């Protein structure tokens, strides 16, 4: 049985939805990211306290024809990639102190 994982937005980023795209800028190195639809869903739901599996079930499986195990595996890979880029924090424990950045997604 896999461990619950949690995702939170990194502190040093700014993000806003514009023209249907979630655009994110890293404050630490000025890198610009544009998320696809699934990544945007994950980003917007990344509150640090909702388990990733629950986010997938509520926001991805409900809207996309994909089984829960596949969706969770894909979401974990995506979260790990975004964490490597420094714009998301991935943890095995809840991150209750993490807050969305100021003026986050519109």
């Amino acid at each position: 049985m896999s461990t619950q994982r949690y995702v939170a937005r990194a502190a040093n980023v700014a993000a806003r939805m514009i023209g249907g795209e979630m655009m994110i800028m890293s404050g630490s190195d000025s890198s610009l990211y544009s998320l696809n639809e699934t990544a945007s869903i994950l980003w917007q739901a990344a509150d640090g306290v909702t388990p990733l599996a629950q986010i997938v079930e509520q926001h991805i499986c409900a809207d996309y024809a994909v089984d829960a195990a596949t969706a969770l595996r894909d979401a974990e890979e995506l979260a790990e990639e975004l964490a490597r880029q420094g714009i998301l924090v991935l943890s095995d424990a809840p991150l209750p102190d993490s807050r969305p950045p100021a003026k986050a997604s519109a």
Partner: protein
Amino acid sequence: MTGAAANGRVDICIGGVTVGVRSSDAGFRRLLEHRYAGFVEFGASPDYEFEVELTQPHEGSADDDVRVYRSNGLWLLERGDFRAEWDPATRRGRIRQSANPYSIDTVLRIVHTLVLAREGGFLLHAASAVRNGRAFVFSGVSGAGKTTLARLAPPDADVLTDEISYVRKEAGGYYAYGTPFAGELARVGANLRAPLDTIYLLAQGAENRVSDVGKAEAARGILANMLFFAEDAELVRAVFLSALDLVEHVPVLRLTFRPEAAAWDLIR
């Protein structure tokens, strides 16, 4: 000694922000007055003031990377050919450089980017011009055609710059200002201010045409051409959000053009 430099200081007003540059070297002050002609204020009370210490010209290279960062409450601005520190609390600073105009030019650009970042404004790699009382900005990387378009401007258009455009967010919306920051045109811009009508992302092509640009693509285009140097997460975020705000409030279009005066028929 001229009036502007009578007190050992040359006051350079760009975008409504006056930076006083103090130097004991009369030749350097004359260089500043010449380079920033049209933007030198007389009897001004500068918003910011720098004391320049001139060094020998062989120290460091202008080809090195710029670093702008904060340390102990001061902004430090560094490149091979200059080193400056600036206290944002007192609004005063010092610059150590040779009498090279490119060094002071870069320091001024950096200072303005830092000032504007907190106000929703920015400097953009772009030519700009005022026509019929409205400002048009033409943004693009080196070689995109900024200087070409500026050179082709019709008589009824006032060129604000062929290289670095100055955009401020004010109570009535966004405004573009002229700058003395020249590119290949090697001519300071008109010292004018006008409400920003449209930003064009430049592309050279086989015909002259204007096409729509999605907001996300527009934001990427603006961000790619924005001047910002500071290693400061808070300001980076502010500049990012300013660019997106601009895209929400000012039309951004793509201008594909041939290097001919007829391209300006599309700019009205």
